[in-house]
């Protein structure tokens, strides 16, 4: 870790930063018993609403609660304005990139991004080549993970262009987000749709760790939550099985991976998909959100090029910077990474959820050696980034209020318009000193507030 103390979003030295002025009084005046009572209330609320998540591969209680910290994180209006501009810009560039690589591939022809990184990427879907989805949008829900290291220093850690989860953990925005999502989905009716489009959410089922979120969104949007077996293809359309017979579906917000969408197009062994779905999609009978093949834009090998995408497609300078990244596929970068392994965070190119990653400063000597061996064996599978001193915000802990490291995941909706919920989800590493905020690895969440002007 870097030697300096991490940026504390509430206090600079002894001085209180303005956005937190109101909270300071609140926190100081609250007696310990009241605080603990409120924390219990919040937990009870989460349990009652059923905000739970399951941790992959850990067994245990699938109904585990995600830890919620009551102490909100606050942005001033000015701080948020800048972030918002940066997020919109990035979401737009990522979609322009997707539309381009499935069409003429100008950015590849121009040599800005090596073609093989795209075409040989498992997330690039050849079946989408030459197809323009409604409004030319591939990634309709873009989650952008952002970290902060100083008053004006924000970095994008990674992009999520497929089906980012976590929106249901936002308490303040529980009502606004689903309404915006519904509006976005409704604006994406396919070519052959007549009248008001009917949207549904496609879930892998109630064993999925994000099932709560799927049912929450379906409820709030007033749309059906369906599994693949509820859908079937006949003629030019996709239908849902209902007690009143088949009903047509126009827009599918899917929360399942590309590979499981349609066994007739992708994995023939998958029982999860809807046979013929891709044929209906390609012939304009239904819209799939996000579009199959959108994942290639959030691949960590492509990530390095996002600032270039912003320049190439929008002719603008990127507002949000990337975290400096070493691509281990390059020999020079690999050498640097191996030499400085104990200072770096190393991630798998296609990994997610904090799995398969190494946090150098917190690793033991053996862990470092093992990881170095993995790196040498398959360098192209890894990227490395410096260990950033993530900012901290005050968090309720057993020992009272203490700073904990946080990141930020705002959700950007792309349809007829680009919509952004103010704030987004703040994830917090609840263990003192820990930098891993993933809920699967001991992280929690807190509300994010944006102050009015």
């Amino acid at each position, binding site marked *: 870790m870097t030697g300096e103390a991490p940026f504390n979003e509430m206090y600079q030295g002894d001085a209180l930063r303005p956005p937190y002025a109101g909270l300071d009084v609140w926190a100081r005046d609250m007696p310990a018993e009241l605080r603990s009572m409120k924390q219990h209330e919040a937990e009870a609320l989460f349990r009652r609403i059923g905000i739970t998540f399951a941790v992959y591969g850990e067994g245990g209680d699938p109904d585990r609660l995600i830890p919620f910290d009551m102490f909100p994180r606050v942005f001033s209006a000015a701080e948020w304005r800048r972030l918002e501009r940066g997020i919109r810009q990035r979401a737009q560039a990522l979609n322009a990139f997707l539309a381009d690589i499935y069409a003429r591939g100008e950015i590849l022809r121009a040599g800005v991004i090596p073609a093989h990184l795209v075409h040989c990427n498992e997330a690039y879907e050849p079946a989408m080549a030459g197809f323009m989805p409604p409004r030319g949008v591939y990634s309709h829900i873009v989650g952008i993970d952002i970290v902060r290291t100083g008053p004006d220093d924000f970095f994008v850690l990674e992009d999520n262009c497929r089906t980012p989860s976590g929106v249901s953990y936002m308490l303040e925005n529980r009502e606004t987000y689903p309404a915006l999502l519904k509006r976005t989905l409704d604006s994406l009716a396919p070519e052959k749709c007549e009248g008001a489009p009917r949207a549904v959410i496609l879930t892998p*089922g109630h064993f999925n760790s994000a099932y709560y979120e799927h049912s929450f969104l379906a409820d709030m949007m007033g749309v059906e939550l369906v599994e693949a077996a509820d859908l079937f293809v006949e003629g030019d359309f996709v239908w849902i*099985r209902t007690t009143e017979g088949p009903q047509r579906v126009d827009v599918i917000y899917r929360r399942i991976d590309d590979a499981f969408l349609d066994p007739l197009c992708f994995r023939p062994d998958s029982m999860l998909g809807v046979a013929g779905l891709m044929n209906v999609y390609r012939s304009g009978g239904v819209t799939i959100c996000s579009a199959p093949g959108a994942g290639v834009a959030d691949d960590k090998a492509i990530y390095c090029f996002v600032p270039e995408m912003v320049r190439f497609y929008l002719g603008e300078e990127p507002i949000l910077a990337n975290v400096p990244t070493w691509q281990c596929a390059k020999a020079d970068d690999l050498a640097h990474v191996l030499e400085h392994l104990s200072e770096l965070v190393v991630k798998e190119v296609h990994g997610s959820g904090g799995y398969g990653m190494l946090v150098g400063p917190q690793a033991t000597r053996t862990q470092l050696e093992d990881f170095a061996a993995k790196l040498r064996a398959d360098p192209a599978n890894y990227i490395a980034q410096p260990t950033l001193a993530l900012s901290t915000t005050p968090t309720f802990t057993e020992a009272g209020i203490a700073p904990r490291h946080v990141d930020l995941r705002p959700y950007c909706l792309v349809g007829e318009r680009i919509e952004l919920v103010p704030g987004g989800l703040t994830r917090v590493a609840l263990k003192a000193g820990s930098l891993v905020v993933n809920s699967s690895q001991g992280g929690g969440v807190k509300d994010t507030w944006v102050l009015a002007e």
Partner: protein
Amino acid sequence: MLSRTAANLYWIGRNVERAEANARLLEVGARNALIPNTSGGFRNEWDAVLRASGTAADFAQRYGEPVQRNIETHLFFDLKNSSSVAACVERARENGRIVRTALTRQLWDALNTAHQEMREMARTERSRLSLSDMTDWAIHTVAQIRGAALATMLRNDAYDFLNIGGALERADSTARILDVKYFVLLPHLSFVGSGLDNYQWRTILRALSLERAFGWAYGGEITPQKIADFLILNRQSPRAILTSVETLTHHLDRLARGYGRSSPAQEAARALHAELAEARVEHVFEEGLHEFLSRMINALAAVADVVQRTYLSGEAR
């Protein structure tokens, strides 16, 4: 409504009802086992209970001799026995979890609490659990689930599917219990009207919590005719087949009205209802009780099949 949602509601209804039926069956067995085995040569009462539950072969294969403790395990706790109380409770809760948003909070709470308490009980040392603790719990729990549905659910199609499942299962279980009483439990037809017969009947009525109701309705001596009338044709009897078929028809009619079109399921249920409404207990005995009950069980299965095709497959147009 999604067909899958309807199917899960329907199965909540069936599973809850089946959990109760099996708990009551267990109680019948335990009470029957209390009287000394003096007549010799007739089958063990537990064997009859296993047959009534439809799992005798499965039990024999996994446990061997019908010993009470094993039967309790098998009928109550064993998740490998798909009709054990535990398996039914687990499935009902799983059905509920899948369609959680279609349930009221009270109904979900009741299902979820049942599941948690069931797990708790399964962990409890068996010497600290009496059979009546177990069966009382099951009957009480099922009543809570039913009560939650009755008190809090909108009277919409979701409520109808829940009740259609429940009514079909209840009619089926009454038919089976009655059938088993005469063709398995009683050693020989010459025992009809004997003290043993009487004792067994009182046990069944008591296990069904219907002993007093029967007394009020018929008074005096227990005869096969009265019992058959009470459990098949008496509209006042909450477990009579006719009562369940009335409930079934009522909810299928409501569905047809709500959806604005009549259905083959409605016709099938109405036909069955018409027959039962006309029937008299003498006719039942003329046909033969066993024959009549077998026909009922098949007719109920046929209605269930039409319900499946009409509403639960999602393909009927």
